[in-house]
């Protein structure tokens, strides 16, 4: 018989080791899944995790992609992690990401074809504002009307998606695009573009912002009163109120920060890698970032590693799709599995597992 015994203090060893264990288990289970699809499991895992970084044939293209994909994931996940730590569940980052892009795109297109140093910074502000405002809807509904923020933030993703389509075929459509849906390409509009900063690295302003956000979040959580209040609220809400935390203000702060970072991520993606507003502009970063946040154990530095790993599964997944014909949906399922295993082994940091024979009395 297996018994669970609560540890008096969470295990530090397992806190670090569980994500690694989860990755290992996911590789095994994923391998089985690929085998079931009729692919060589070892080759598939190798293609996903190893080839993008070390195979000379692909590394030149793939390595810079790592930062390109990890940037938005880390940026969004860091924002989300603040709320998740406080028990504020923003799961609509995908919608806030879209709104950030739409706001920034709107500002950029309004200035087209003017040039000026101030256009790009204005777009950054607009992007942050767009994500922030979209997150303020669930925040205000939660604090004023006690409405569940999980449902509202998620439902707003569908609304944002419809808005995106409406814009891509309507107001923001490129007048010189021959009637095809989609906006002008920001890569071809220097005053509003977010280019690769150092050639061959994939580094762009969004990646820089992501790292700034990581450091900001680390300092906030470790040293600042607000960070302490966030942790306190998540662990013991009643104790937090006793300590003097104003729950409504914290909800607004957490949702606002995560909306802001998601909006920024959308803005940098629009002006950089994506280039333009289109119907399929959003590619699920807002949802994958939830996995990244948990995989990084809601710790800013952990999120960096988790974001890089998850970016690798994206790139490796594309490679596996191209080389082995592994369907892209398999990668999505693979990522979901990773979260399952992570949640499953999480137990080890708070409980001891004892094998005990049922005793006779």
């Amino acid at each position, binding site marked *: 018989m297996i018994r669970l015994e609560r540890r*008096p203090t969470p295990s530090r060893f397992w806190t670090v080791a569980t994500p690694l264990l989860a990755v290992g288990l996911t590789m095994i289970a994923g391998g089985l899944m690929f085998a079931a699809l009729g692919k060589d499991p070892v080759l598939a895992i190798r293609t996903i995790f190893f080839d993008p970084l070390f195979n000379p044939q692909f590394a030149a293209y793939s390595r810079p992609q790592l930062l390109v994909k990890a940037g938005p994931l880390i940026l969004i996940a860091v924002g989300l992690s603040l709320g998740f730590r406080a028990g504020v569940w923003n799961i609509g980052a995908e919608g806030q990401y879209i709104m950030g892009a739409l706001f920034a795109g709107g500002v950029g297109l309004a200035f087209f074809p003017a040039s000026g140093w101030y256009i790009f910074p204005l777009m950054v502000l607009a992007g942050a504002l767009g994500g922030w405002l979209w997150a303020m809807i669930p925040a205000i509904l939660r604090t004023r009307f006690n409405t569940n923020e999980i449902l509202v933030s998620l439902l707003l993703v569908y609304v944002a998606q419809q808005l995106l389509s409406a814009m891509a075929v309507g107001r923001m459509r490129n007048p010189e695009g021959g009637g095809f849906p989609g906006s002008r390409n920001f890569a071809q509009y220097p005053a509003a573009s977010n280019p690769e900063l150092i050639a061959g690295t994939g580094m762009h302003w969004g990646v820089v912002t992501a790292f700034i956000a990581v450091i900001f979040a680390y300092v906030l959580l470790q040293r600042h009163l607000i960070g302490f209040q966030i942790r*306190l609220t998540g662990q*013991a809400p009643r104790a937090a109120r*006793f300590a003097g935390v104003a729950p409504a203000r914290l909800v607004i702060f957490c949702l606002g920060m995560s909306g802001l970072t998601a909006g920024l991520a959308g803005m940098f993606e629009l002006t950089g890698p994506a280039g333009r507003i289109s119907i399929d502009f959003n590619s699920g970063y807002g949802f994958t970032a939830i996995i990244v946040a948990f995989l990084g154990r809601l710790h800013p530095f952990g999120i960096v590693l988790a974001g890089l790993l998850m970016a690798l599964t994206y790139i490796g997944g594309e490679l596996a799709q191209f080389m082995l014909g592994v369907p892209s949906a398999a990668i999505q399922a693979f990522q979901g599995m990773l979260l399952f295993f992570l949640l499953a082994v999480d137990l080890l940091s708070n409980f001891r597992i004892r094998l005990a024979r049922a005793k006779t*009395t």
Partner: protein
Amino acid sequence: MTDRPTLLEIRGLTKAYPGVVANDDVSFSIREGEVHALLGENGAGKSTLVKMIYGLVRPDAGSMTLRGHDYAPPEPSSARAAGVAMVFQHFSLFEALDVAENVALGMENPPPQRQLARRIREVSQAYGLPLDPSRLVGELSAGERQRVEIIRCLLQDPKLLIMDEPTSVLTPQEVDILFRTLRQLSAEGTAILYISHKLEEIRALCDSATILRLGKVVGTCDPRAVSARELAEQMVGSSLMIPERAPANPGPVVLEIDTLNLRSANPFGTSLRDVSLQVRAGEILGIGGVAGNGQDELLAALSGEARALAQAVKLNGVGIGSLGPLDRRTLGLLTAPEERLGHAAAPDMTLTENAALTGALRQGMLKHGFLNWARARSFAEDIIARFDVRTPGPHVAARALSGGNLQKFVIGREVLQRPVALVVNQPTWGVDASAAASIRQALMDLAAGGAAVVVISQDLDELMEISDRFAALNEGRLSEPRPTAGLDVERIGLMLGGAHDMDVADPEEIAHVAE
């Protein structure tokens, strides 16, 4: 009584949890129809023992026989089938369900709802415990809830009824009613295993007693044949330290509540109605009352977790009723709620972090919104040293501490911040005797140093021991405070029961209130 046959025989029961042996080779026996006391401090292993008898916990070693047959219930339903029933210390009731549904849940084969309701009425009348089967349990008082539990047991004609600290939630008058019921049951042949640490009660009610200390049986006796002091010394293992009381010399009014009305945040909570009180510097005001009569709400109104009109709460004449906890702390009004884990302290956080939880402002840990963890750590170390908190150090998580040690930490954290006024709720609940004595001493020293202290407690002995004046909470109303000196049990009982005007209290009304 001694000629009755043995009902339950316990031989060598042992149960160990990580780091602690809860029961070590416990043996004793209970006779048919006997009221048997199980006596011991908190943590002596009483709860674990009865959980084994009731089938909630399986012993590591040892055996039991019931009427001569082997008895090893794998789960409570088999215990109930064998005729063993239990009334819990923390009620096993469902607030959003009605009385009949609650009773049905505790029975193996409940009759249809309508028939059950009739049976509940019959049994409750027969034992003098009136109860309406259709009421929601959440709307009942603590005493009425206990009746639900008792009737749930009685409907199954138990041979052995286990009662875990049944009087801790009752007024003295309700205790009398309960004892009458228990004696009636005993006369009808039902044995009762009565768990308590209140010695006078046991001497008044029980035929025999088994005393547990640190998981071991340290004695069996006839509680009527020995003095309360002898029982106490067996239970504690040493002579008790009685706190010293410096004569009170009250100064000006420090803390004042003026006709406070406050709706409870909890749908089943008790709202405060027209509560007024004044506490002077150097004085301890004791507030008694049965659980659930507005204690949590009163603490929340003082801590700032619940806001009111500015002038409803005053500290040194300044209206603070609309301020939050941080502002009140800055002004010097500190509080310690009842629930240690999750309310007064965050279970998974270290003691250093828990020291910052209320101490950040007054202990200079905050600068431009940034926390100085070195200061928090030294404050935590200070609390640990000065209040004798037994722990490896301030890096330990709060939930790793025993109840008594965490309580010392929580009280110490507030006392060491030199409050102008301190309000504590149940400061010694679930704490062993020596830690309780040192907590009471700390509160009295604080008052002697000029602070105004309010102690909310359900332990009347404690309140009589340390407070200068006494008031009672009943259904959210606070009685007029009276000097503690000269109060007797009868009067206290009336105050707890809600008869605030003593002059009109006649015997008929006492009976009415007690119901």
